[in-house]
């Protein structure tokens, strides 16, 4: 039962943080290189610019859901299972989502890495 709760939390973390990661990445690409903006317009203008990007706020909300799922997951399962399993599954889900929604070119190198990490996750869950 405890394991089931831990895996339910892991599933929720993966779904929420993939949504969040894609939205945040999309927003930051639109904002542009932060160090350039920092130099040119100052840190306050940079923070204001990021915080007024609607997709950033949506991504933040999705990350909030993922964060609370992580809190509960950690109280139900082992640190060395919940954190690596959810985060690595998120990595694989993100590779697919980044290709579809962000049009990133996920080459052979990145797919092999995705498979290696996915294999690692399966072994860690055994």
């Amino acid at each position: 039962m405890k394991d089931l709760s831990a895996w339910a939390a892991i599933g929720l973390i993966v779904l929420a943080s993939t949504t969040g990661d894609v939205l945040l990445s999309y927003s930051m690409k639109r904002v542009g290189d932060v160090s350039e903006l920092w130099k040119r317009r100052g840190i306050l203008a940079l923070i204001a610019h990021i915080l007024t990007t609607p997709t950033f706020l949506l991504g933040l909300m999705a990350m909030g859901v993922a964060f609370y799922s992580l809190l509960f997951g950690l109280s139900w399962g082992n640190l060395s299972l919940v954190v690596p399993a959810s985060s690595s599954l998120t990595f694989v889900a993100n590779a697919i989502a980044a290709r579809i929604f962000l049009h990133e070119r996920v080459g052979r190198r990145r797919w092999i890495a995705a498979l290696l990490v996915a294999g690692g996750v399966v072994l860690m869950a055994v």
Partner: protein
Amino acid sequence: MTFRKYLVLAGITAFSTAGDSLLARGMKELGGVSLHNYSDLLLPVLNPFVAAGILLLLAFFSCYLAALSWADLTYVLPATSLGYVLVALIAHFSFHEEISSTRWLGIALIAAGVSFVAAGPSVTPDRSHRKSRGLAPDTASQEVKS
């Protein structure tokens, strides 16, 4: 540029590892949290370990956003997963959570996958058209300024 790149990636790894470990320590102190009690949703934040963990995760988040502003999501994310290997090591040596040999092999595979991506390019060529679109509002405001 390269030094800054690795500095930000190192920050991501260090802050997320330390943050997650402090969160775990705090949540273990609190014991099982029940979904039926709504005050349980806010109570964890009052624990000093959870609070410190959240602060470190905020530092991680800043580094993460900075990295995302100049690199692909599929590049930044694997680079961050180096932290999971560190988390497992900390879980083993500080919290004495048992790690089986198959789990050690899993850790090795994750580490291998991460190094594979980190060694490659951080931005794929496909990004160029999105970059020009993304920077358009800034160049516009810069012109207004000058």
